[in-house]
Structures are given as structure tokens and as C-alpha cells.
């Protein structure tokens, strides 16, 4: 049964196939598994994703064909949870926002599938790998296209599961298994907040639903957004807890670095390009709640910024090539989250997209390197690979410049957008801008460090390793090239106004968030004073494009950040390529405690372990299990009472001493008591 509100929007049965095709692929690979020859398995997997990419494009075009105001395609498949007033459908919806995500996910996903054909070609779990990979695409698309918050949650948990499966893909290593488990559990902690947020949302909305409206449908929620005003802050924060899990923000980011235990394509796809951006997507998706909750927005901003700094600093010291990229990812995610916190949802999503391109590129590149180094991941034994792996090197370099925000590469536009918002939004200010600015520099620095250590100088690996070094096969290099191109040009669709462009990207997304502003206005209407501020912020966020007031300033800042980026790059190059004063002073630090703290990631894991995990286990074992269960309940109450009864029994038993005269005596006593009682009564 289709809930009424879907009648108003265009029904597009195409959507379900975008989601289901990968599931089909997963099913085929999963059921047939080894029985399926590798080639076939690969074909099935890539075919499935390829098709759903094509379909996404088609759907995107159809969406684009609609007038900007009504860009929404919906596909309600079936009712899911229907009980009394609670009604949740299995359904998908495509709007400008999800369209962007869909294209990114299926597109990058396809490339990484292809890449994996080569990367995993020798792995005995080939079919299993592609099963999981397809399953992931399915979950991710459910998350992106989900028509309501619960569908999103289904995908949310699904991608979590897939990341668990893929991180611990090589489960022979206890460490990998542990990493996977850690990822899942930490995410669960986030989901806890997400769930509570969902409940609060539902409870608040329920009494205001019109008949047949799906409770958690985004449309419905947006339509009734104003009633959420009183609790928007709480909801926003709770949902954000979920985001901190998925998008690896403080305090739950700890799982992402360990997640590098998975195969590199997985790191690229899940832990860089797509899944980890789910949190950002969710915040953007729920923008209509956040614009009502200035406090929540501030928290989001601060957490984002803090994460960006923290991760960036750590990244400068790591030696494992993938870990550097991991922390870089965390820090970039911080960027995106911060953007959302500032109400600059469009900018956040824009960075999601560009980041997907260049971070995927970087990971795949590192994968290519690791492939060449026969599995070695420590940069200290690398070096001088530039000549041996030319394609990898050049594409990697492109990625590096992109992430460093070099004009006119993709990273520049998205990052600059965020920097500007940090500076100009009511939520932001100079301080915030400086933080973001610092991070930008750090990013450039550690990325160049990585490049130098890996590709520059002479190789420090052992003889036979060095002997095997070779460029990767086409299936791996092709995706690199494509992604390199995207990393270079991908940002141009967001060419900002102050550089004479007309930020298509932001305009494309405008309807989604504009409506948020709208809702905010409505809320300001209902909710009164306190929210006017948030609403205003949203407006500032929503249609900032039209505002040409600070063009000069914008240009200045952009130039500054560009320069700063270049400075960082060159600093990195200087320090790690040849001896100079600067380099020496930098190295001087290396021995000192700041370095050690960074190297050990601020000892956060240790802190969690010592403060929560160990005590928790000890409490459960000694107090609850041995103490309460075995001790009090069973020992004291159950067996205790049984013992008492038994003791009384065996005491009474002693009266039975076999002496007739004693028996007679007790008889007589009984009679006496009876007689006395009667005489008292009578």
C-alpha cells in the first residue's frame, strides 16, 4: 500500500533496482561461492554495480529533467512496519542530495570493484570478497536512497555489518578479526544514540501525523518539522552521536584507523569514499532538524573542527602508509562535519564528493604501492618507487595536490568553500577559520611527507622485495587514472561565484536545504525567539551563493589558503627529502614527547581500555556473576532457604528417638496443652 504522500511525487520503480541489483550479485556470488569461476564471479559483481551505476545515471537524468522545485522521485515498494498509527514503508526516494550520493557511491564503487579484480586476483576468498563488496553497495544504496529514517538505519547497520565482514576479511589474523569487531561495536555505540534520537523524533511527530503518513518518511518529517522545534536540539545531538560513530568523529573515531586491517580496496571504498561519509549525509539529510537546533549545530561544528585537528596532528607522525591516509580521512571527515555544523550542508556534501574522488585515489594508489612492495605497508622501508611505478606515482601525486587544495584541483573548491563558511557563517568566525586553516596546512604537510617517503629517494626495502617491485596491472591502474581525472576536474562543477563561476553544485542541492531553511522559518514562526537565530544561520547557509558582498575578501582568503597549502607541501618535501636547517629542527622534535604523544595517537585507545573496558569486564565477572548470581541469589537465597528447611527437618528428626516412653510423654504434653486451652476457653 503506498502512503498517500507519495502520490504527489513521481513514482519511479527504477530506484528499487539500483538497490537490489548489487544484492542480487551478492546472492549469486554468496550462494555459488567457490563453484563460480573467478572470472564469472568478478563479472557478476562488477556487472551488478555497473548496472546500478547506469541506472543511477538514468534516474539522475530523469530527476534533473524535473523543475527544480519538485525534484523528487519515490519508489514505495511495500509496507514494512505497520501497527496502529506506526507506519513505515520499504521505499526509496531520489532527490538532488541522494542523487549526488548515489552517483558517487555507485561510480566510485564500480571503479573499486574493477580495481579489486586485480588486487584480489590471487586471494582464495575472491568470491567471498566480491559477495561482501556487492552486499556493501546494496546497504550503502539503501542508506542513501532510503525513503525514511528507518530505511536509512537499515542501510546504516548494513554498511556497518559489511565493514565488519570486510575488515576481518583475512580473519586468520586475530588482529583483523578484533579490528572488525571493534568497528562494529563502536558503531553500535553510535547507533544507540541514533536510535534514541529516532524514538524522540517519532514520539514527537506521531500525534501530528495525518492518516496514512509514514512516520519516519523524510518528506513527512520535513513537512511537520515545525512541531519538532521544542526537542530539535536533543534530537540533533542524539542523531549526531550516531554520526560520530559512522563518520569517525571524536569520541568514536578510534575504530577507523584499526579498520585499515581490511584489504586496501575496502579501505578505499568503505573507509574513505563512501560509508564513513554516511554520517555527514545523514546530518545533511536531517538538515531540517538541525536548522532548528543552533546548540546542536554548535556542538557539531566544534566536534568536527576538533576531530579535524586531532587526526591531522596524528597523521603527521604515522609510519604505516594506510594509517596516515586513515587519519587524514578522519580529519577530512571532521571538515565535512564542521561544514554541516555551520549550516553549509551543500559545502559539506561537496567535500564528501571531492574527497571520495581523491581519497579513493590515494588509497588505491597506496594499495598499488603495497601490492608492489609485496604487502609491505611501512613507509620507512619504502622510497624511490616513483620510477618503478610511474602511473601510480603520478596519479598519487594528483591526489595529493587535490587534497592539499591546490588550485584548480577538486580539493581546492570544496575545501575553500568550507574555509569560507567557517569564516563567514554566524556559527563560525575567525577562530574557527584559523583552526580549519591550520588543518589545511597540516594536511598538505603530511601528505607530502607520505609522497616523499614512498616515492622519493632510494628504496630501503630488502633485496627480494625490491626485486619484485612492478607496476600494477591495468585493472588496477585504470581506476587510478579515472579517479585522478576526477580529482583534478571533479571540483569544477562547484566553481564558485567569486571566481566567476556559478556554483552549479550548490544550486543543484539548494532545493533540499532551502526547504530546511523554510522549515526553520516556519519553526521560528512557531517556536519563537530562541530559534530565530538558528533559522537565520540556515538562511545564511542556504542562499549564500547569491551574496556577493565579500567577493574581495573571499578571493583573499582563497589565495591565502592556497599559499598555505603550497607552503605545507614544500615544507613536507624539504623535511623529508634533503637535509636543511628547517628539517633538522623538525627532526629535533621527533625525539621529544610531543612526537611520542602523537605517535601513540594521544593514548586514547589505552584510555578507553583502562577506563571502561577492563573495569566493565571485571565488574561483570566478579560482582555480577560470581557475586550476585552465584553468591547472593543462588547461594544465599535459593540454596540458603533450602538449607534452612533441611536443617529444621533433621532437627525435628532427632525427636524420633525410638523411646516409647518419650512418645507417650509427648502425647501427654499434647493432651495437656489441649486441655489447658479448652479450660481457658470454656
Amino acid at each position, binding site marked *: 500500500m503506498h502512503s498517500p504522500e507519495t502520490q504527489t511525487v513521481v513514482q519511479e520503480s527504477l530506484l528499487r533496482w539500483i538497490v537490489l541489483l548489487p544484492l542480487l550479485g551478492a546472492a549469486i556470488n554468496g550462494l555459488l561461492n567457490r563453484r563460480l569461476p573467478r572470472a564469472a564471479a568478478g563479472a557478476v559483481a562488477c556487472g551488478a554495480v555497473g548496472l546500478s551505476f547506469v541506472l543511477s545515471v538514468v534516474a539522475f537524468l530523469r530527476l534533473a529533467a524535473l523543475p527544480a522545485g519538485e525534484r523528487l522521485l519515490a519508489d514505495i515498494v511495500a509496507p514494512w512496519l505497520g501497527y496502529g498509527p506506526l507506519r513505515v514503508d520499504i521505499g526509496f526516494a531520489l532527490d538532488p542530495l541522494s542523487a549526488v550520493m548515489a552517483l558517487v557511491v555507485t561510480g566510485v564503487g564500480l571503479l573499486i570493484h574493477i580495481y579489486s579484480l586485480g588486487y584480489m586476483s590471487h586471494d582464495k576468498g575472491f568470491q567471498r570478497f566480491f559477495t561482501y563488496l556487492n552486499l556493501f553497495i546494496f546497504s550503502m544504496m539503501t542508506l542513501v536512497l532510503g525513503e525514511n529514517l528507518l530505511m536509512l538505519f537499515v542501510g546504516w547497520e548494513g554498511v556497518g555489518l559489511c565493514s565488519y565482514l570486510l575488515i576481518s576479511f583475512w580473519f586468520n589474523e586475530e588482529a583483523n578479526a578484533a579490528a572488525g569487531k571493534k568497528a562494529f561495536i563502536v558503531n553500535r555505540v553510535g547507533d544507540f544514540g541514533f536510535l534514541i534520537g529516532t524514538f524522540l523524533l517519532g514520539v514527537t511527530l506521531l500525534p501530528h501525523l495525518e492518516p496514512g503518513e509514514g512516520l519516519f518518511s523524510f518528506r513527512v518529517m520535513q513537512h511537520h518539522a515545525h512541531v519538532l522545534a521544542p526537542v530539535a536540539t536533543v534530537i540533533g545531538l542524539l542523531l549526531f552521536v550516531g554520526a560520530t560513530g559512522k563518520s569517525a568523529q571524536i569520541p568514536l573515531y578510534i575504530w577507523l584507523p584499526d579498520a585499515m586491517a581490511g584489504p586496501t580496496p575496502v579501505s578505499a571504498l568503505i573507509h574513505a569514499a563512501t560509508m564513513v561519509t554516511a554520517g555527514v549525509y545523514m546530518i545533511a539529510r536531517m538538515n531540517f532538524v538541525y536548522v532548528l537546533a543552533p546548540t546542536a549545530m554548535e556542538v557539531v561544528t566544534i566536534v568536527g573542527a576538533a576531530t579535524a585537528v586531532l587526526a591531522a596532528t596524528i597523521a603527521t607522525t604515522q609510519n604505516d602508509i594506510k594509517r596516515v591516509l586513515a587519519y587524514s580521512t578522519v580529519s577530512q571527515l571532521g571538515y565535512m562535519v564542521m561544514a554541516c555544523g555551520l549550516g553549509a550542508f551543500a559545502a559539506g556534501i561537496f567535500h564528501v564528493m571531492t574527497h571520495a574522488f581523491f581519497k579513493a585515489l590515494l588509497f588505491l594508489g597506496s594499495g598499488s604501492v603495497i601490492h608492489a612492495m609485496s604487502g609491505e605497508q611501512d613507509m620507512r622501508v619504502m622510497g624511490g618507487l616513483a620510477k618503478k611505478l610511474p602511473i601510480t606515482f603520478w596519479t598519487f601525486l594528483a591526489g595529493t595536490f587535490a587534497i592539499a587544495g591546490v588550485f584548480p584541483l577538486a580539493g581546492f573548491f570544496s575545501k575553500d568553500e568550507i574555509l569560507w563558511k567557517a569564516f563567514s557563517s554566524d556559527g563560525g568566525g575567525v577562530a574557527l577559520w584559523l583552526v580549519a586553516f591550520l588543518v589545511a596546512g597540516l594536511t598538505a604537510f603530511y601528505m607530502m611527507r607520505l609522497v616523499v617517503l614512498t616515492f622519493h629517494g632510494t628504496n630501503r626495502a630488502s633485496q627480494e622485495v625490491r626485486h619484485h617491485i612492478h607496476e600494477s596491472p591495468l585493472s588496477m591502474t585504470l581506476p587510478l587514472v579515472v579517479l585522478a581525472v576526477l580529482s583534478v576536474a571533479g571540483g569544477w562543477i562547484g566553481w564558485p561565484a567569486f571566481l566567476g563561476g556559478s556554483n552549479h553544485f550548490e544550486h543543484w542541492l539548494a532545493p533540499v536545504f532551502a526547504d530546511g531553511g523554510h522549515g526553520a522559518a516556519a519553526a521560528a514562526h512557531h517556536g519563537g525567539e530562541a530559534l530565530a537565530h538558528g533559522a537565520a544561520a540556515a538562511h545564511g547557509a542556504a542562499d549564500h551563493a547569491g551574496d556577493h558582498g565579500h567577493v574581495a575578501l573571499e578571493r583573499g582568503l582563497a589565495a591565502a589558503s592556497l599559499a598555505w597549502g603550497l607552503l605545507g607541501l614544500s615544507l613536507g618535501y624539504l623535511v623529508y627529502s634533503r637535509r636543511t636547517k628547517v628539517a633538522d629542527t623538525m627532526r629535533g622534535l621527533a625525539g621529544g614527547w610531543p612526537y611520542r604523544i602523537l605517535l601513540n595517537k594521544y593514548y586514547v585507545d589505552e584510555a578507553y581500555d583502562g577506563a571502561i573496558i577492563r573495569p566493565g569486564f571485571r565488574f561483570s565477572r566478579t560482582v555480577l556473576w560470581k557475586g550476585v548470581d552465584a553468591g547472593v541469589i543462588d547461594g544465599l537465597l535459593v540454596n540458603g532457604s533450602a538449607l534452612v528447611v533441611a536443617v529444621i527437618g533433621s532437627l*525435628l528428626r532427632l525427636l524420633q528417638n525410638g523411646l516409647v516412653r518419650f512418645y507417650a510423654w509427648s*502425647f501427654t504434653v499434647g493432651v495437656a496443652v489441649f486441655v489447658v486451652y479448652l479450660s481457658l476457653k470454656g
Partner: protein
Amino acid sequence: MNGFVAPSVGGQLDVLLPYLVVAVGGLAIMLVDALVRTRRRDHLPFLTLLVLLGSVLAQLARSGGEEREILAGMMTVGDYARYFNLLFAGCGVLTTVFAGAVLERDGRGRPEFYPLLLFSILGMMVLAAASDLLTVFLGIETMSLAVYVLAGGVRGDVRSSEAGFKYLLLGGFASAFLLMGMALLYGFAGGTAFSDIAGALAAREGDLGLAMLGGGLVLVGFAFKVAIVPFHMWTPDVYDGAPAYVTGFMATAVKAAGFAILVRFAWLMQPQLAFVWYPVLAGLAVVTMTVGNLVALAQSSVKRLLAWSSIAHAGYLMLGVVTLISPATGGSAQMVLGREVGESAGSALLFYLLAYSLMNLAAFGIVASLGSREGEADDIERYAGLSRRRPVAAAVLAVAMLSLAGIPPLVGFMSKFYLFSAVVRAGLVPLAVIGVINSLISVYYYLRLLVVMYMKKPEADGYAGHEPLAVGAAAVLAGLVLLLGVVPDGVHRAALVVFRQMSF
């Protein structure tokens, strides 16, 4: 009252017939045994069964109809008496079967056993019909004297004779109190007939103190027979010492007889004395069931365990008696609610006695059958793995135990259900709660036997006695236990009718 009218037996023969059959049959068997000079004696049980069957037929020949006073009001024969007579006969039959099987096995000739069994049953029958203190006395003594010998008469068995003698001594001691009570009641009423007593109570003439004290002592006498704490001390020892087949008889028939008269007597005294007795009887009931169950927990001998369990059950039954005379019956049985409560309690008691006899006889039958020349199957540990050696016996015993524990759908549960619902209906919820807590405790020791039989590995010296006849009979009982557990209504209705006729 003129007690000098020569009781005309004419026209009462039909009613007296069952009694005569048993009495004459008993004597006849004695003679037969004296005259027939064969070594083998397996014709005796057969004859006994015939006699019992005869009495039963004589019962059924003249069932229904009003209660009738016979022998100048010494006895009142009606459905109440018949109900119990059938019960006694049934117990007698099974005891005969068990005894026959066991005596055959042990090669012990006990020619005196069967006539004595019949005489004790005769005593019981008289007791159940007694409507005069004198007949009560004669009935009790006839029964007891016979049972003393049944219990103690196993020649060359120290335990048996010790049991018999202890029983006799304490029995005599108790009857002294009983008689003293009767004497005082006589002094109060000026006659020994129940009618005299009832009349005197109704007219409130004479010294009620005498009535209370006398009635109390009489109750004590009965309490001794049915093993109410603290008049129970003899029970475990005697049950333990006497051979299992006799113990079974004592635990069922004797107890039933005791309650038969106890109920009748309590109902007789109820109108005026209920309020005085009710609290102390309630106390006795609670103490009895509690002590019985608690001590049973600590038993390692099956017979003693069953002895204590029988004490506990006496407690439950006493609860019924308490309800019967409780204020809820309105002090006067004429009030409608009181009447209903009284009826439900009385019928519950009758049903309970039947149910209890069924399951207990089944249990003792198995115990008896498992023994051997060397001795009886008494050590609980040696029941280990019985379910593998003697599956049928084990199953029957298990059913009996579960039924005694009051697990549905067995008659034990139904009898408890009827009893406790009467108690609750009388508004004595606390007593009911104490009752169920007790039956909860009892579950533990009844289960112990199951655990041993079914869940422990067989021991080398485990009991393996095998008496197809006895086991078969017990199996039939187990079948009845199950049947009456599912469809108890018929019997319960009968009990209701019977009690009505006795009481109103």
C-alpha cells in the same frame, strides 16, 4: 433413655449382611486353616478375596436409600458407611494381593494374617457406621487389636514385633484417653448414642465443659489413630518395622477409618463446639503437615519417607476437618453458605481419602514387590537405576510419587484441588497458603525417589524383586490415579451425595 430394649435383628439382616459376611468369613478362614493340613497355603488369600468380594456384593445389593439406624441406633448404615466399606474392601483386596505375593516369595506362612486382616476390616466397617460411643469403641479396638498383630506378628522378625509392641503400648495408652473422653461425654449427655449427645448439645443442657473436655479427649484418641502431630510419634517406627504390605494397609485403610469416624464425630459436635475446637485443630493441622514434610526431607528409608509423607497428608486432611467445623460453616450447618462450605469440605475429604489410598497403596505395593527374602526394599539409594531394571515398577512408583506431590493431571492434584478450594471457599486463605507451601516442600522428597530411579546409574546391589501380580495390581492403581486425575467428577459427585446424606 431405655437402653434395655432387646435389639431386634429381624429385618436388619440385609443391612447387616456385609458385616456378617466379613465376620463369618474371617472365622471360617481360621477354621479352614486349622483343619486343612497342607504345607502350601495359597488358598488363604484366595478365600480372603472371596470374602471381601462377597461383602462388596452385599453392599451393592442394597445401595442407595436413606440412612438407617440399626441395632437400636448403635449403628447407622447409609451411603456414608457404604462408601467407606467399599474403600476398606478395596484396600483389603490389594493388601491381600500384595501380602499373598510377598509371603509366597519369602516362604513365610502367616496363616493368621488373612483372618486378622478381615477382622480389622470388620472393625473399620463398624467404625464407619458407628453412631454410638460404644460401637465407636468396639470398632476402633477390633480394628486396632487386629492391626497390632498384623504389624507385629511376623515370627522371627525383631523389627516387626518391636513395631507391633510399640504400636500396642501407645495404642492402649491412647485408647485410655479416648475412653476417658467417652466417659466424660457420657456424663455430659447421659447416653452414649450420638443422638443423645446431639440432643444434649442442641438443648444446651448439662455441663458444656464436660462436653468440650470429653469431646476433646475423644478427638485426641482419633488423632492418634490418624497420626496427627504430636500424637504421631508411633507412626514412623511402626510403619518402618511392619512389613510393607501391612504398612500400606495401615497408611490407607486404618487412616481412612480414623477419618471416617473423625469426620462424623466432628460434624456431630460441630454446632456448639466448632468455635472452641477450630483454632486448636487448625494449629494441629498446620503443625502436622509441616512437621511431616520437613522430617520427610531428611529420610533415607523409603518406608519412613512414606510414613512421614502419610503424616503430612493427615495434616492436609485435618485441614479439611478444620474447614468442616470452621466458623464459615456458620456454627449451624443449617445456614445455606455454611452448608455449602461444609459439603465442599466433607466431599473433598472423602475424595481425598480415596485418592490417597490409591496412590499410597500403589507405592507400598511396589515397595513390597521389590523386596526379597533378605529383606525389604527400604534403602532409597538402592533404588538407583530401577527404571532400567524394572521399568514398569519404576513407572508406577513414579506416578504414585508425582501424584502424592500433587502434580496434575494425577488424582493427587485433584484431591488437593478439591480440598484447598474448600479451604479457600471457607475464607481460610492463610491456611490454604500454608498448605500449598507445604505441598511445595513435599515435592522435593517425592522427586528424590524419581531422581534416584530414573537419573542415577544402576548400582550392583540395587533392588530387583519382581512380583508380577503385585506390580500388576499396583499398575492398575496407577491407571486409576491417572484416570481419576483427568475425570474425577463422577467420584466427587458420589462423595458429595454421600456426605450430604450423612450430614443432613
